[in-house]
Every structure is written in C-alpha cells, then in structure tokens.
C-alpha cells in the first residue's frame, strides 16, 4: 500500500503546486544546499515523462477514442472512420461470444493464477523451506528455467507434450491412449500450461516472504507444539498477508491479459479457450473490426482497474 502511495507521489511530483515554489526558493537562497534547481530537475525527468506519455498514456487514450468509432482494418471505414458513440459497447454486451470470453477468462485466471500459480507456488515455497540448500537450488533453477523461456518456445514444447499420437504425455502414461489433450480438455490444458509457466515466479516471491520471517518465530511455535498447519495459520500467513495479496494482484492481472494460450489452441475448439485477449485479436485483426476491438480493450482495462482496486481495498482493510 505504501509503495502505491509513493508511486503516486512520484508521478504527481512533476506538476508541483505553485504555492510550493516560494519555500523552495527560500531554501535555495538560505542554504544553497539544493544541488539541482527546479528547472534542471524537470529537465532530467522530461525524457522519462515523455516516453511514458508516448508509449503508455497516448495509446491508452487513442484506444478509448477508437472504441467510440467504427474504424476498420481495411476498406472505407479505415480511411474515414465515423464516430458511433457507445454502439461498440452495446454490441459487446449483446454478443454471447463476448460473455463466453469473459467467463473463460475468469475460469482461466481463477484456475491458473489463483489456484495454480499462487497456491502451488506457495505450497512449493513452504515445503522447500526446510530442505537442504543444494537440492533446493537445483529445483529452483529448474523452475526458473520454465519461467525465463520465451512463451512461443514453451508453447511449442507443450504442443509436442500434449499431442495425441506422438505426445510425450501419452507416452508417459501407464495405459495406452491417444487422447488429443488440446482438443478434448482444452481449457484444462491451457490452465495447466500457464500454471507451469508462472509458478516459478510465485514460488520465488513467496520463498522470499517466508524467509523474511525470523526463524525464532517459527521455533517458538514449534516448541509450543504447533503443527505445520498451525505454524502456517498463526505465524506465517498473518505475517506475509501483504506479500500474498500483492502477488495475487500481479499474477491475476498478468494472467488476465495473457495472449500466449493462442499459440496452443487459437481460442478453440469451438471458443472453449477464447479468453478476452484472443477475442479482441480475432475481432480486430481477423474480422478487421478495430473500433470494436478497441472497445473490448477498454472494458479489459476497466476490469484490470477493478481487480486492482479490490486488492488494494482488501490490503488496506487488513492492514489497519
């Protein structure tokens, strides 16, 4: 929470309120201690602020604008888009595929970010905490490898792994099968895929959080006779709640915006894995409806904001 505030301060720090100026000048005159004058400081910040403006704020505003038009990828509406007001938004709310995408996305986030990465990552971190450092290092390196590999490479590994006829998974299974996993269990497949990909990060995060607890706290509980579960409930979780919520926030937002599952299933079969980013992609680039895609993107932006606000709210409430 505090970091968010500080971040806010930094961003808001550039257009300084006028009434702050005299005191600063007084300080300059009095001590001559300020090395950078206000103008020089602004000069240093300007490039970064400019880049943020060009690459983050402008596209976001541009997307909002496009969402209010009927601009298309090609054709007449590409050259001369018309302002259509909220038409795109009402259309989205009436499109059953939009609702399908929303539901699939929520299941995907719940399954892979919350249950998968967070729960599995935390469990791994907790179980590995007492292990000898060597074994742990090896496991950590392996898990991190899974994380730093490029998404496209991993996607093809998983296609090979899940393939029906020559797939590694079917070969490993003790019974003979030629299940086409990506066709028969597509949503489960991409959930497992994304869990596999993101658990490393979660594990490292939680491992660091668990390590921040002084050993004497856990040892006091052990001496009182607390079981592993009691130690977790009474000592560990209350203490790393902040880390936990921050990680949940990051992992859910990243997963919510993830496009990589497209490489595995292209949203199919029959839209079963069409998460919102894929839906946007299909509408905007396959069907050329850029304006509509932009409107959906704006909705996604809104949902991201809601997720963030929810976590921040919980975090603030629990902290006080």
């Amino acid at each position, binding site marked *: 929470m505090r970091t968010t505030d500080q971040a806010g301060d930094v961003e808001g720090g550039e257009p300084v309120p006028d009434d702050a100026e005299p005191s600063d000048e007084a300080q300059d005159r009095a001590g001559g201690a300020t090395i950078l004058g206000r103008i020089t400081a602004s000069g240093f910040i300007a490039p970064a602020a400019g880049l943020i403006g060009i690459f983050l704020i402008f596209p976001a505003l541009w997307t909002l604008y496009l969402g209010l038009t009927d601009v298309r990828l090609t054709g007449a509406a590409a050259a001369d888009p018309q302002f259509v007001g909220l038409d795109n938004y009402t259309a989205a709310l009436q499109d059953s595929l939009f609702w399908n995408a929303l539901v699939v996305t929520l299941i995907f986030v719940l399954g892979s970010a919350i249950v998968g990465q967070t729960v599995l990552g935390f469990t791994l971190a907790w179980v590995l905490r007492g292990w000898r450092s060597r074994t742990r290092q090896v496991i950590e390196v392996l898990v991190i490898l899974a994380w730093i590999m490029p998404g496209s490479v991993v996607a093809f590994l998983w296609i090979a792994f899940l393939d029906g006829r020559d797939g590694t998974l079917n070969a490993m299974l003790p019974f003979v099968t030629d299940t086409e996993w990506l066709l028969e269990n597509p949503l489960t497949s991409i959930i497992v895929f994304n869990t596999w990909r993101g658990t490393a990060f979660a594990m490292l995060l939680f491992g660091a959080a668990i390590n921040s607890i*002084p050993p004497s*706290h856990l040892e006091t509980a052990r*001496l009182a*006779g607390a079981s592993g579960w009691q130690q977790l409930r009474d000592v560990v979780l209350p203490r790393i709640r902040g880390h936990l919520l921050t990680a949940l926030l990051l992992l859910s937002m990243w997963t919510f915006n993830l496009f990589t599952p497209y490489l595995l299933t292209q949203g199919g079969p029959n839209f079963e894995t069409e998460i919102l980013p894929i839906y946007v992609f299909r509408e905007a680039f396959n069907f050329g409806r850029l304006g509509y895609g932009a409107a959906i993107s704006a909705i996604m932006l809104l949902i991201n904001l809601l997720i963030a606000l929810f976590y921040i709210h919980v975090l603030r409430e629990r902290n006080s």
Partner: protein
Amino acid sequence: MAEVRIEGLTKRFPGGVQAVDDLDLDIEDGEFFSLLGPSGCGKTTLLRSIAGLETPTAGRISIGEQDVTRIPPGERDVAMVFQDYALYPHMEVVDNIAYPLKVRKHSKSDRHRRAGEAAESLSLGELLNRRPAALSGGQQQRVAVARAVAHEPSVFLFDEPLSNLDARLRLEARTFLKRLQGDLGVSTVYVTHDQSEALALSDRMAVMKDGRIRQIGAPEEVFSRPTDLFVASFIGSVPMNLLASTTTADGGLELAGQRVPVPGPYEGMLEPNRSVTFGARPEHGSLTPPDTPGAMTGLAVVAELLGTEHLVTVECGDVMVRVVTSDPPTPGEPVGVRFEEAWVLLFDTEDEQLIRREPAAAGDVRSTG
C-alpha cells in the same frame, strides 16, 4: 520440573564446524544453571539441542526420566526465550502470552485467565491489549518471559534474553528473573556471554570454550578458584593478573625479575625451576611502601576510577600488575604490591591447569558440584 542430563553430546554442522564436542552435563531439578563463554563457543547450539531445534550428531539428552534425543521440540515440554523475543507482531500481548495454550487447545476464557495471571506476575497487567510494536524493549522482554511462564514447562531455556536491554534495565530484569525462577522452581538453562549475569543469577554455572566445558561449579567457586588459565582470564570484570614466573631453588618465586615467597597454600608443593603462572585478582591485592619484603616493587602508571575504588596499574620491570585500592598513588610514584596469599592461584604454564595438592583426576573438570 525435571533434571536435564546430557551425555556425550556432539554437534557438527554441515561444513565441518564442531559446535559442541563430546559434552557431558547434568542440570538438577529446579536449578538455575548458566552457560557462559565467548562468542562462538557453542552455547546457543547446546541450548537449541536441549530444545530439539538442532539434531545432535552424537550423544543423548534426557529431560526428567525421558530420553528426548529423538523427540520433536513440541513434545519435550520446554519453553525458550529467544534473544529477539520472537513476539508475534499481529497478536496482542495477551494472545502472545496465551499462544502455547492456544496450541494445546485450551478454551479462550481459560487462556486469557492464565495469560492474565502470568502477565500479572511480571507486572504486565496494563499492557494486555497492546501490540508488541507498542511496547518498550524491557516490556517486550517480560512478555516473552510471560509466554514461557504461561506454557508451564518443565524446563526454561533462555538464550541471552537480556542482551538487547540497556545496562540499568538489564539489572532490573536480572533481579525479577531470579525471583521468578525461585518462585516457580523450574529448572532453567540460561545462556549468556555476560559473566556478571552468570555470577549473579546462577546456582551453578559452566564456562565453555570451543564446544567443551572448561569448568562447572557454583559462581563463587568458578570466580575464586578457576581451574585453568582460560577460565581465570575469562571470569572477572577486571581481569585477573596472570604473570609468568619460575620457582627458585630456595623455595621462592621469581616474578618480573623480583623474588617473592611462594604463597602459603603452595608451600612445599613445587619443585625448583618450574614454569608457573601466578594468578591473582586485583581485588585481592594491596599497595605497600616500596621495597617491603615479600612485595613486588614498581612504578604506579595509571589509576582508573571504578566507582568507590581505583584500579591502579603498576609497572614492575616489563610486566603490568593491577591492584584495586581505595587510596591511589600519584602516577610515577614507586610502590610495592602484595597479594593476599590465600587467594593467589598458581597454574602450570605448560598444561594451563591449576596446580592442586592432589593431581587432578581425569574427569575432574566435569565434576558436578
């Protein structure tokens, strides 16, 4: 309440550090026992082994009648107070104190009643609903002790519980700890590297070095009759004078180029020409006029105020001798120094052991006093 028996305990850490080395120790029921030694000598490791937080490489530990060597910490019925107190920041004081009872599934009202009693005995009654962050260091320390008390264990283990307090608070805390332990009568193992704490608190104490016990005994005994040079140099807020000397053919001692008589208790025990170390506490010395027979003569160099008395350093030839006196000479003045013979100790310079009338038996160092 129970005695603690340790037999042949060895702890070797991965990486080869031998923190505890084939150590035997008996702590009696209801006793306040201190472990004293320099940093890294294995005190904490020994304490944690008793608690079950370290697995011994070899040896046995029993508490009461029970061999606990392979028993997990939670079933040993011991309570430990850590140097950092280990209070849970998210719990109020009362819940911190009651935590061991919560683990054992006492009802909430029972927990709070007993936590209240423990808190009362440590004058924490007013603070029950505060969070640890809102307490002073001394209060936090008492909460940690109260938690151990509420646990009602058969053994208390303390690992330098007072080292985070300032000097005055430490004195206060020392007094209440001693009284509390006396009232409860629970066997207590107390680790410290502050010798004044060990001397003040203990029924018996052990001085450790390099994972071994050098001497066990009552504090007075360890203070006045250290059995080897290490203990002699380690104990005492003003270090003991330890001076190289040689016995002479006519039954005297040559000390800093001067001749002094062999102290009474050692008369007739020493063959001529033996290298011995002359040990005497500054508190047992006195100043005489220069060239008094039987005293060493030298020049007073500095006088430091200790409070009511002065510590005077006298340069005799090339050695420095220190004496506590209430009547300090002016620096530069020639003075004589004499030590009360009854308190003087002679150590064999070779094996660093105290010279005694009968040769020390092999197991003597570990004798339980």
